[in-house]
């Protein structure tokens, strides 16, 4: 059995729909309309011990819902999951001592007290032996370089510093599985980079299994060997990051440098013109057309330099998201349900 095993996992919510205006508010007291939102629609996934997997997807794709399901915060509408053999939503203490969830937008530390106090509390809650606690805390504070900040109230820390403290709090009990939900959200480039560096190092040394969601492609590129693209509650892709481009990019970017100061005016016929600053031109060309286009261009014009590149990863992923949501839109996944007041 895999370390994390998910079979046909589904989660739907019922969301109250309120029309604008006072009248709608009044009728809402007696008669309410609900919409069923299918946040996760049948996910199958296996993750082995020590893997670092990224969930990619647009907002509302079901990434966070999946992490919440795996950490037992919510229970599924259908399907099953096992993490280290435990069913997460049974919430046994044994399971809860072996994983951690870090949410970039939520704060787990005591706001008015120094982080050191929150850590002390975690030591007790997770029954961490004093020697282990001291060693782990020492290691983590060294790695993240926050030793001086331990005794400063959390509310006086910067966002980046606070995130580091959140990570320490989550890792004190040496969890075997770590769920990270947007751990670098809102951080500046340097803070992001520091967190990435730390996570990479920690994962390599400890071989913990990590599932990460992020909007930042840089996070993913720096950290994860495996990428799972989720859109509209379904898995669209599961494989390496480079594979995403091979599989989903339909175009390549052709950069040409013509001899002289002029650029030809008939370039539209070969592909979409992205940029044209004489004598350089960037063209978006269909993948299958590349040899033909190149041959025609070289035959008809004097070209000094040429390069063929894959489009940037962000672009491919963005296209993929748009495609997948259009597909899902066609399937009309939302069902209107009408019910009476009370949730």
């Amino acid at each position, binding site marked *: 059995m895999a370390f994390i095993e998910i079979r046909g996992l589904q989660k739907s919510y019922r969301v109250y729909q309120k029309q604008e205006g006072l009248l709608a508010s009044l009728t809402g007291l007696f008669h309410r309309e609900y919409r069923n939102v299918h946040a996760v629609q049948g996910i199958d996934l296996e993750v082995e011990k020590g893997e670092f997997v990224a969930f990619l997807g647009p907002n509302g794709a079901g990434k966070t819902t999946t992490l919440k399901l795996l950490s*037992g*915060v919510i229970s599924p509408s259908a399907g099953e999951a096992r993490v280290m053999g435990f069913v997460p939503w049974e*919430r046994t203490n044994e399971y*809860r001592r072996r994983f951690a969830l870090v949410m970039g937008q939520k704060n787990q530390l005591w706001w008015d*007290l120094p982080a050191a*106090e929150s850590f*002390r509390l975690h*030591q007790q809650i*997770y029954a961490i032996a004093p020697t282990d606690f001291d060693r782990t805390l020492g290691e983590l504070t060294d790695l993240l370089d926050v030793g001086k900040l331990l005794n400063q109230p959390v509310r006086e820390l910067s966002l980046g510093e606070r995130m580091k403290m959140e990570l320490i709090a989550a890792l004190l009990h040496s969890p075997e599985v770590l769920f990270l939900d947007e751990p670098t959200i809102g951080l500046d480039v340097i803070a992001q980079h520091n967190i990435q560096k730390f996570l990479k190092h920690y994962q390599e040394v400890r071989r913990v299994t990590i599932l990460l969601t992020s909007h930042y492609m840089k996070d993913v590129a720096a950290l994860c060997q495996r990428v799972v693209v989720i859109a509209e509650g379904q898995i669209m892709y599961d494989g390496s990051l480079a594979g995403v481009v091979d599989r989903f990019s339909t175009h390549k970017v052709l950069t040409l440098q013509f001899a002289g100061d002029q650029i030809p005016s008939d370039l539209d016929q070969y592909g979409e013109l992205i940029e044209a600053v004489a004598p350089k031109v960037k063209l978006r060309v269909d993948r299958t057309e590349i040899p033909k286009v190149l041959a025609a261009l070289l035959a008809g014009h004097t070209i000094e330099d040429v390069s063929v590149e894959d489009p940037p990863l962000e672009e491919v992923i963005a296209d993929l998201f748009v495609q997948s949501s259009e597909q899902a839109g066609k399937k009309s996944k939302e069902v209107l349900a009408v019910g009476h007041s009370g*949730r």
Partner: protein
Amino acid sequence: MYARAQTWWTILRICIEERLVYRGDFALGTLMRFLPIITQIFLWTSVYAAAGQGDIRGYTRDDVIAYYLLTMVGRAFSSMPGLASGIARQIRDGEIKKFLIQPIDLLGFLLLARIAHKLVYYGVAIGPFALVFFLCGNYFTNGWPEASVLAAFVASLVMAFLLGLFLEAAIGMIGFWFLEVSSLLFVYMLFNFFFSGHMFPLEFLTGYLPDWLQTVAHYQPLQFLAYFPAAVFLGKIEGPELVEGLCVQAAWVMVFFVVCRVAMRRGFQRYSGYGG
């Protein structure tokens, strides 16, 4: 066992530290609570003067003022400012998740946090309390009660604390179903004001209530938050009645403890079913 005690101690210690962060505001709030005593003394003096009789249902003016001071002690144990609304807020903004993810019991945590709050409160309030009781010593016309009554008084205070905690926590957990509990809390406070005996001794209600309501009033839980400990101290409840009262109070503590547990379990189930 030792490890558990240590966990509890750490939680208690951290909660105390947290309470002490905003010490200025806290001290001021604590001291302000003593101001109404003066108005109470004037109020009851004029009530008795207007009534033109020495006692109302067994309470002289001095008794009523002594009673009022004692309900302040009772309420120092049983009132739980911000507990219910705090739980409802945690449910609404998702902070309650912590108790689903971490191996820690919400109710146990609330209990310790409140003990910490109370300890800090007593630490600050003990001075003013001692001063007020010293200044108002004359109103206690019977002097100190005997040791057994004092023991019953202390027991009823401890149970008043537990009852107040579980009662308000249960109201807070209604937040799992309704998200906003502030109006419900307002209604509760209104009932609490009358039926806990905070406003006047519950004996004053006799004769105004229909018989069936009288019976309800005799067994209802709110009286144990303020009226009962004060009446015990003043010797208004004695002998078998006192034993019965303590048993009923203990029963209510158990009832609301169970209600809390069930509400918490169901609430978490619902929370995890509907979102989170």
